[in-house]
């Protein structure tokens, strides 16, 4: 009798476990997700940087031409983040925006919790880009972002893979633009417990001289949901 009760108990617990697994397969709980460590792309400044310390530990030596047409060197993010946008000549504005985007991403990384649950795929590849929201595209002003819904690949049929020329960077052509998406950092930037991605978008107009850098922060709240836009530049 006691053996029959034991067997019954085992059957019930197995069935209960299976049912629980089925009912949560589309809505994974936090406990089922990996806890990921925050990450800063060590090559986002095009040179190896220290990612374990603080923002002040990031050192570089990048030449710019000031508005007085004299050269100056940017050496750290504090200087970049405290300086205005019109510190450089017009033709180096895109480079300055590139450096500023990296510093904004690094600053957010150092201010974010060091671990979070993550639903992001491990690889930052063309598949990741295809599933980004359609609004994750450089803002060129005018009405360039209006009405962009769904995913990038479903909205922009012109989306084409060009190259993965650098680690954590994917180049595509979309809507008359060449866009280089670079993963700058992964961290829980908005402190909701889930890891987000800071993506820099370097863009070039295909049939003209326009170029620039924009950035977005995206979150992903479950394994089945597409990424959502949290913030943009």
């Amino acid at each position, binding site marked *: 009798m006691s053996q029959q009760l034991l067997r019954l108990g085992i059957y019930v617990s197995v069935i209960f476990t299976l049912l629980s697994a089925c009912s949560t397969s589309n809505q994974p709980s936090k406990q089922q997700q990996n806890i990921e460590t925050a990450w800063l792309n060590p090559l986002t400044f*095009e040179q190896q940087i220290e990612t374990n310390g603080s923002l002040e530990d990031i050192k570089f030596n990048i030449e710019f031409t000031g508005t007085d047409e004299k050269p100056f060197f940017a050496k750290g993010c504090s200087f970049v983040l405290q300086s205005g946008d*019109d510190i450089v000549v*017009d033709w180096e*504005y895109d480079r300055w925006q*590139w450096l500023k985007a990296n510093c904004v991403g690094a600053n957010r990384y150092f201010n974010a919790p060091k671990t979070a649950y993550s639903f992001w795929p491990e690889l930052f590849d063309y598949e990741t880009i295809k599933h980004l929201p359609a609004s994750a595209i450089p803002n060129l002003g005018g009405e360039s972002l209006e009405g962009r819904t769904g995913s990038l690949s479903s909205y922009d049929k012109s989306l084409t893979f060009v190259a993965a020329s650098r680690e954590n960077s994917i180049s595509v052509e979309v809507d*008359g633009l060449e866009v280089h998406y670079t993963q700058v950092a992964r961290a829980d930037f908005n402190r909701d417990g889930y890891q987000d991605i800071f993506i820099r978008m370097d863009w070039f*107009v295909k049939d003209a001289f326009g170029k*620039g850098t924009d950035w977005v922060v995206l979150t992903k709240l479950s394994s089945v949901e597409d990424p959502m836009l949290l913030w943009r530049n």
Partner: protein
Amino acid sequence: MPLNANVKTEVIKNTEKFEGRVPHLYLDTRGLVTVGIGHLISNKAAMASVVMYKKNSNNTLVLASLAEKQAEYDSIKKQPYGFSRNANFYKLHTTLIMKDHDIVAQKEKHILKFYSELTKYYTTSNGFAKNFDLMPYSVQKALFDMVFNLGITKLRTQYVKMNNAIKKEDWIVAAAESKRVGISSSRNNYVSNLFLSAQKQSITP
């Protein structure tokens, strides 16, 4: 109708101000060989159309041969590239330069291409009050700056509110809707003020 000379001069001056002028070869942030006012050289063979000079033993400039220009192209193409390097970085690796008038001539070719695109789109048949050539000169200069940056497709399809204002010759709204993202505030102000000056001209008796 040819492009007004005053407009052309201003466009050359401002594209140089906004795009920069580099007389030697360099790599842009994507690693593409570039010279002059943002002129991309698509491949080694295209060096044939770029007029460059070298200094001879008397320190005077003499025309560089195609072989010399292509060797310079190869030498620059091997250099590292990216956002962390500006054009000055490549100067040490070059021996050839372009003369100012050749840089301007190169730029004029780009201007003619964009002029052709502007005159095809800004027409009375597309709903504008005037054809491009008959628009105020300040508006022509503003549209030139925008087309250089955005290309005609984006200027046409992503600046619909601005173009609707231009159709009505409402220069105040056109000025407000001309604001671009990714360029300096001084460049945005330059274009905005060009539209606003058309407004002032239109109310001058």
